[in-house]
């Protein structure tokens, strides 16, 4: 299993139930933070962590995941099906 960290999302208006950051892929480019600094920040190892899993709507969260230059952010729906990257 890759070095992945999971974060549960509980937002009622959201189809996304889980955010996963692949710490091996993450290079600290911080593009996710540029899109949503209320959801992500970098830790002291330069890896993205989720600080507010429910902070933004689905469209913004997907945009943050899409912005990642290494596709290190993986999104799952509430049934556990991967929705990004497709």
């Amino acid at each position, binding site marked *: 299993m890759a070095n992945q960290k999971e974060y549960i999302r509980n937002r009622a208006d959201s189809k996304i139930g889980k955010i996963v950051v692949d710490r*091996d*892929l993450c*290079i*600290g*480019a*911080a*593009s996710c*933070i*540029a899109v949503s*600094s*209320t959801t992500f*920040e*970098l*830790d*002291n*190892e*330069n890896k993205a962590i989720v600080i507010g899993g429910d902070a933004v709507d689905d469209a913004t969260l997907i945009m943050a995941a899409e*912005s990642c*230059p*290494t*596709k290190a952010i993986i999104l799952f729906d509430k049934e556990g099906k991967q929705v990004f990257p497709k």
Partner: protein
Amino acid sequence: MEKYKYLIAGGGVAGATAAETIRGRDSEGSIAIVNEEPYMLYSRVMLSKPNFFLGQIPFESIWLKGKEWYEKNRVVFMGAKKLEKLETGRKLATLSDGTQIEYDKLLLATGVCTREWQVAGADKKGVFYLRTLEDGKKIIEAVKTGKRAIVIGGGFIGFEMADMLHLAGLDVTMVIRENYFWEPLLNEASGRMIEKAMTENGVKILYNLLVNEVLGNEEVKGVLLSNGTRLDCDMIICGIGAECHTDWIKSIGLNVNRGILANEYLETNLPDIWTAGDTAEFKDLILDETVQIGNWVNAREQGRIAAINMTGERKPFKFVSFYTTQGMGVTIAFVGDVRMGPDRIVIQRGSPEINSYGRIIILDKGSRKEVEGATFINRTKEMGSVAKLIESNMDVSNKTKELGDPNFDLKLLLPAI
């Protein structure tokens, strides 16, 4: 003759993000991207990362947008072609293969070129630069058989390439013109922290030196340094900065300095021509000056804002830029404007002794003080809070104690959202 409503020169992250944003706002308008490299959007930042070079993540992970994306979004991709001529009055672009394209709106997002190393013998086999995917592939091959490498330049590319070469098992020596790593963007204490991490990993660093000559016949065998020393090597990677080749652009009346000049809307001085990404030298509303910034996050955001403006809105680009890297057990982060000057004060957080050291750069405006930028060694976590402090333009005159306390949570200074 081909005709497109939106013509985008440059298919990197700025150009591709612009195409994506335009399509989201104008479902009918025709879009074409002209790209010098044959490849569709890939992750250029991955090119300098050791885990990519050394095959620890699959090569395929570099691709970010495939053929299906361009088809689905009706974005015509013209690879291995370059914009070579512009007749701005007729809105006519001529490409390197002679194709002529009429456009309504044009985005120049062509990136920058690596600065060429002006040293005798620099054209020998075994001297590498890193800009394109082809460059990356050549280095991947060379590393497989290389034994001794020299890295020229003490910036991001130099740092990341030294890390990669060291992890690949090569003997690595860095030749740096300055007195310490990343001078003058970092202070000496920060530079020495990076040096310590690198030398502990076996990378040798030589300062205050230039290469006078690259030795060898057809292939690199070594270098002759400015102090007369000869160093043997079988490969050299140059990371000595970037530049734009703007002569032909200048000749058509576009205002150019180091990059293509633009206002805060990323508009150039000519009608219906915008610029975005590394090539843009734009009016930064947060810093209140004209700057050129070369990094992924900035390029992506500029592509998005330029596209919004190309589709009829008027939205200024307002963004605090940041960049981070890591390697050999050290993390480095830059946020905002980290240049020093007579009106700037530095507040230190932590120290090299505890191996966690930040510098908050404050602009002293006399009656008030504002955070302008910061550099962090092994304290990346604070980067986000500082970005928000910069964006807020908050007066921090009576907050210097908190800013200088390494245990104080900077988030507590932020205005409530």
